């Protein structure tokens, strides 16, 4: 397995839509090595988000195995999966998905609080990360008081603050303007280089695809061309 963070072995996902079964992912096998800056791309409906969700343990494959750092996800309970997501995976969603009742600081702090990291240590880490993502001075703002780009930066801060094994970013630049998108990609690139965090994007944004160091193309739920 080498230094693979993620291994997919013959993974398929079938959704039932009424009487029709829709194959979102079809016998996909894939390995993501530690420190990669990889991009899953393909047209809408190619299965990018489904793959990301299954890797993150948010969704369950119909068949096949997903192994994250030597642990097969399908064998884990809901609570164990939650702990894996808390400690080893960071998520960045297209729609930011921040907790609306929490401030930027508290959203970024959320995972550390779940990990029971001491308060002082939490504060130190979160303040450093917020500064790193360019949100210094905006710590006390709630999501509805931040721009789209700023919200996505909070989401990135939340994803990286606990130093996970991999960050799964689903269309992270889809809802922001091109300048913000550029700065977000640069930010994540820097984090990848400086901290060695593995990134796996799902996108059809050419700006992201062009910056990816590994491009994984999907078509109809299967590998198209690597």
């Amino acid at each position, binding site marked *: 397995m080498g230094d693979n963070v993620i291994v997919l072995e013959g993974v398929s996902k079938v959704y039932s839509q009424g009487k029709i079964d829709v194959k979102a992912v079809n016998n996909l096998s894939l390995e993501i090595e530690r420190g990669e800056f990889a991009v899953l791309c393909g047209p809408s409906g190619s299965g990018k988000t489904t793959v990301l*969700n299954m890797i*993150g*343990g*948010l*969704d369950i494959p119909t068949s096949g195995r997903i192994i994250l750092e030597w642990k097969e996800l399908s064998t884990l309970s*809901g*609570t164990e999966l*939650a*702990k894996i*997501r*808390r*400690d080893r995976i960071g*998520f960045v*969603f297209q729609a930011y*998905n*921040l*907790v*609306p*009742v*929490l401030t930027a600081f508290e959203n970024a702090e*959320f*995972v550390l*609080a*779940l*990990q029971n990291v001491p308060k002082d240590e939490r504060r130190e880490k979160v303040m450093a990360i917020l500064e790193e993502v360019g949100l210094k001075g905006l710590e006390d703002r709630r999501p509805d008081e931040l721009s789209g780009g700023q919200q996505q930066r909070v989401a990135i801060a*939340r994803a990286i603050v606990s130093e996970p094994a991999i960050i799964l970013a689903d269309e992270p630049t889809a809802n922001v303007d091109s300048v913000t998108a550029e700065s977000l990609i640069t930010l994540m690139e820097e984090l990848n280089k400086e901290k060695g965090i593995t990134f796996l994007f799902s996108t059809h944004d050419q700006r992201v695809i062009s910056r990816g160091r590994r491009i994984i193309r999907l078509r109809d739920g299967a590998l198209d061309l690597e």
Partner: protein
Amino acid sequence: MKILPFAIRNVGRNRQRTLITIAAMGLAGFIMVFYASLLNGFSQKIAENSVGMSIGDIQIHAEGYRNDPDLYKMVTNHSDIISQLSSRGLAASPRLYGFGLAATGSTSAGVRISGIDPVLEATVTNLHQNILEGSWLDPSDPKGVVIGKKLARTLNVDVGGEVVMVSQASDGSMANDIYRVRGILKSVGEGIDRGGFYLLNDEFRSLMVLPEGVHEIAIKRLNESSELFESTAIVSRLAPGFEVLDWHRLQPIVSRMLETNEAGTLIMLIITYSAVSMVILNAMLMSVFERIHEFGIMRAVGVTPMQVFSLIFTEAMLQALAASLLTLAVGVPVSLYYQTHGIDMSSLAGDLSFGGVAINPIWYCKVTPSSILIPIIFLFLITALAVLYPAIKAAVIQPVKAIYHR
């Protein structure tokens, strides 16, 4: 994750819904505290009237007297029994009973003649404190009698008026005498109101030619904290061969009603709180459905199903806590007010009686720890039950479905 601060913040998010939920819960709590206190007061008054007006805690009779109140079925050694009871901390009053016809002018009414010792009777019952007009029996006024309120009306007699008593004495002779009404009793019970005719023991003996014995010894525990069954056992040992019964067996209807009052409170609690549980369930379901997306995010970043459950459960408990404080703040002062002032039900109920016991038309609350705590404990229980379904629903939802739920 620290559940409590997060739950506090969530409760404050939709203030209008939270306030409505807390108000509904608090209103139910208030109703139940007030209802339980009122029923407590009502029960206590009935027990007081039943025991305090005529029965006492325990009574001694000759075997068979209660079923067949024969003039000759008597407790013979009553003086010894009374003195022994007194040494055991039990007050006792000897009573004599007979039946006769009381007449004034052209009206007459059947009465139960009660011969009592006014001094000893005052240690057992508080009949002497329930004089509507005139005054209580006095040994210095042997021909003075006290009669029931309705009897006075039937005989059309006032205090100071004369009443002729006609009966059959124990020797078979005609018993008759003229008495003067010293006092008229308040409404204390249907039997006493319609046919109560009280005179001194010695006058009774003289009228009915009954020199020895008594028909009844009424007993009261001077120490009310002592157990009734223990006192009854003591009395049974001191009066062998006689029938000894406590007031629960003497007034089974009243006793059973008081027992069922507790069940009544419980049923009322269940009915009221069932309605409230629907409000809580609805509010919590709305709150959960509104936040499914948010729960999805939380699950995605590592919140466990148990933590989601705990969060929603804590939010509901916080609302129950606020409702309990509201219940205490409103329910207790209102109940305490009516404990002192009472609610006048006379316009609705008039003269009420139950099992022969008069019910005061002014109903008083009686606030006790249980009348406060039981409704509050039930409030928490019902909230916990009502929130189970939404909390479980939120906890087990698949994260991927929750995240994309809009």
